């Protein structure tokens, strides 16, 4: 177990280096001069531009810039944004909001996805199953910004049940609609995955044995059908946590939330390489940690998997 954990944590190092290098290269290859665009219509005086370029090492070759960035990370100094705020501060401010949003979405898609999927799988071919299948296809096909805008108009403006946008320091209520929008696609996928898995397990020999033992229907369903069906679903949820972080870029845009997605979006528009790379790296790290957690959870759910 410790060996396994150690090996997995060691894997984080090359992933981290590779991700930052790749991101840095992508940002570097962007056409245009970010500093030139900073001063609006008139532009900044040449001297100030030079100073900013020197401060952010923008006048240096690519690898030097990257090494400066790495040095910053290992000395716990992520650098400043163009406006002078430390990047670390921006990250610390944005991360919790996105995290809350992602977790809310995760809870919504997991609870409803598994619930509906189980129900549909147990009633394969019946009315509920067929209608839920069609609905899930529809949800997968609809892009996030469509569901987002429709919900904003119907639930936010017409019915006035929930706030239309979240804004600064959003609370649970104002994040509810964005979380639902963020969750829709994955909800439909979890539903379908659970349904397939349940259908497969319902006819398994050990389920018949469990029934032959005299277990009640509910016990058989919860302990033998659902429990075993969760194994593939958990894998999906782990991968999905990363998708939720990136999916938040669109959703935060629609609902005007200043989380990781919103900040990243602005940084990309400004060409602020340090912020872009740092924010993206945070998303990569969340992805790695989430997958590690899923693999550990996997071993809890399926005793045949042992990490030694």
């Amino acid at each position, binding site marked *: 177990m410790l*060996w*396994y954990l150690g090996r997995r944590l060691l894997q984080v190092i090359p992933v981290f280096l590779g991700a930052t290098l790749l991101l840095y290269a992508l940002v570097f290859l962007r056409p245009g001069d970010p500093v030139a665009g900073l001063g609006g219509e008139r532009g900044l005086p040449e001297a100030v531009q030079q100073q900013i370029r020197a401060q952010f090492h923008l006048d240096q070759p690519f690898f030097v810039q990257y090494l400066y960035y790495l040095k910053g990370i290992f000395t716990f100094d992520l650098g400043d944004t163009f406006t002078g705020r430390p990047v670390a501060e921006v990250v610390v401010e944005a991360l919790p909001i996105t995290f809350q949003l992602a977790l809310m979405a995760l809870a919504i898609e997991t609870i409803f996805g598994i619930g509906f999927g189980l129900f549909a799988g147990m009633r394969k071919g019946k009315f509920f199953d067929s209608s839920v299948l069609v609905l899930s296809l529809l949800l997968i096909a609809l892009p996030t910004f469509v569901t987002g805008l429709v919900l904003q108009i119907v639930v936010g403006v017409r019915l006035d049940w929930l706030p239309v946008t979240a804004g600064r320091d959003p609370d649970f209520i104002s994040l509810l609609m964005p979380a639902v929008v963020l969750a829709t696609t994955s909800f439909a996928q979890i539903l379908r995955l659970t349904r397939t898995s349940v259908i497969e397990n319902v*006819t*398994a*020999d*050990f*389920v*018949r*044995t*469990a*029934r*032959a*033992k*005299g*277990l*009640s*229907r509910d*016990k058989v369903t919860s*302990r*033998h059908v659902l*429990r*075993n069906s969760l*194994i593939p679903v958990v894998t999906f949820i782990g991968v999905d946590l990363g998708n939720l972080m990136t999916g938040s870029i669109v959703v935060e845009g629609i609902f005007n939330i200043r989380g990781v997605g919103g900040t990243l979006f602005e940084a990309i528009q400004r060409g602020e390489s340090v912020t872009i790379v740092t924010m993206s790296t945070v998303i990569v790290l969340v992805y790695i940690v989430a997958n590690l957690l899923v693999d550990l959870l996997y071993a809890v*759910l*399926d*005793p*045949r998997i042992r*990490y*030694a």
Partner: protein
Amino acid sequence: MTTTISLTDGSTEDAPVPAEKREDGSPLLEIRDLQISFTTATGTVDAVRGVDLSVYPGQSVAIVGESGSGKSTTAHAIIDLLPGTGKVTGGSITFGGRELVGLNRKETEDLRGSEIGLVPQDPMSNLNPVWRIGTQIDEALVANGFQGSKAERTARVAELLGEAGLPDATRRARQYPHEFSGGIRQRALIAIGLASRPKLLIADEPTSALDVTVQKKILDHLEVLTAELGTAVLFITHDLGLAAERAEHLIVMYKGKIVESGPAAQILQDPQHEYTKRLVASAPSLASRRIQSAHERGTEAADLLAGHADEVEATVSDVVVAKDLTKVFHIRGSRPGAHSDFTAVDGIDFALPKGHTLALVGESGSGKSTAANMVLGLLEPTSGTVLFDGKDVAKMSRKEQFALRRRVQPVFQNPYGSLDPTYSVFRSIEEPLALHRVGDRKSREARVRDLLDMVSLPQATMRRFPNELSGGQRQRIAIARALALEPEVLVLDEAVSALDVLVQAQILTLLNDLQAELGLSYLFITHDLAVVRQIADLVAVMKDGSIVEHATTDEVFDNPQQQYTQDLLAAIPGASLEIGG
């Protein structure tokens, strides 16, 4: 070594409680005119058509039949566990005087486990892999109203496992199914089936997935246990020998109907129905001998040849020789660099004489299939050599090895898995011909027709697909494919093990005939000694990667030298029975 009950003439009087003596008492289970149908896309299929049977308290009854005969369907209907669209469409099932057909869900759940227990067929798939063994037994106790604290339940679970013959039961209860062998899992399933002391135990092919020595131990144990507890047992099996050995009363089912029913000994010695007669006649047992017809024809053929050319058959040469053949598998360990070695085949020697059959016999894990794969060139030996016609296979060039493949062809166990379901029969058989660029399209088609004739299938079969054929027909196709390139050696890896006994007998006869006609040499891999007796000239018994005994078939069967061989022989179901009248 034969500790089994001997059911020779007149011994029914000694049997514990013969069925006939209880006719006046009331039966525990009574099935009258049971009808079961399955709804399919093309209509309804009647799986069980008017079955009547009775099981008296403490009695053991066996239903015998081939796959698709409706034996398992009948058994599952008793506890309302019919698969899929199966439905009881008529008749009645009474248990202890109570009608079971039409019980509501709650009543059925109360009945299962506490009144009627089930020991299912495949120990590998019938335990839930994610729960501890103990938990799965504990569940059964709780569901059937076991009163007691957690600690009392844990103690009871250990007691039940111990009773089912598991050593070190307390520790075992905390382990997961994947940590157990098939035999131990089956014991756990028996513990589950008997956990709440049911009056009737349905044992659905309880040991068909296990090695014969393990099967014997488990069935012996089950017999003692159910006798002690006074549990009635309803055996479901395809194995006539096993049924006769383990049950007092036999019921033979064929195509959804009972064709014969009566005391075990009586059915074996004096079968009335045509189907039962065929079943008894083709049941492989120790009493059977090498299939003769083909052998005789083989001798005739040899005589004819001898008249033709003088040099034939002075001494039979060995077509395949294995010398000190060893295969070691490296198993990667968890820690960096750590690994262990597993010796699957440990320095074995054998020789397959031309035109003869050598059987490699052993239980699962004995290394017999690994040895076969090395002969086929599918696995590279770690050390040792395979000589083909005196030439070392390992030293051949790639081209020579490719040519060698034509001369050695395999037939595998599972005819459902070894034929590509998307290939027509023609394409399956033609593929090796096309691959080795034999002839043109026309001549290849003619060859496929010949091959189908050879395996006694109509030529029209070549336009069909594997899913339209029965298991026996598919195995014939697999044999035809193997013969396409006119090989000299066939490696038959459990080639008849998945087949029902009547089909098995047909395929064995076919193989014998082909051997005589074409002068083939067979390397026959099997776990089934009874089959060996019917087909092999020479036997090599394998255990833990080594050959423990290597002699002619008659020597091994009539005078086994090793304790292990003796155990294997004694464990064959029906070994001590006199079959046939």
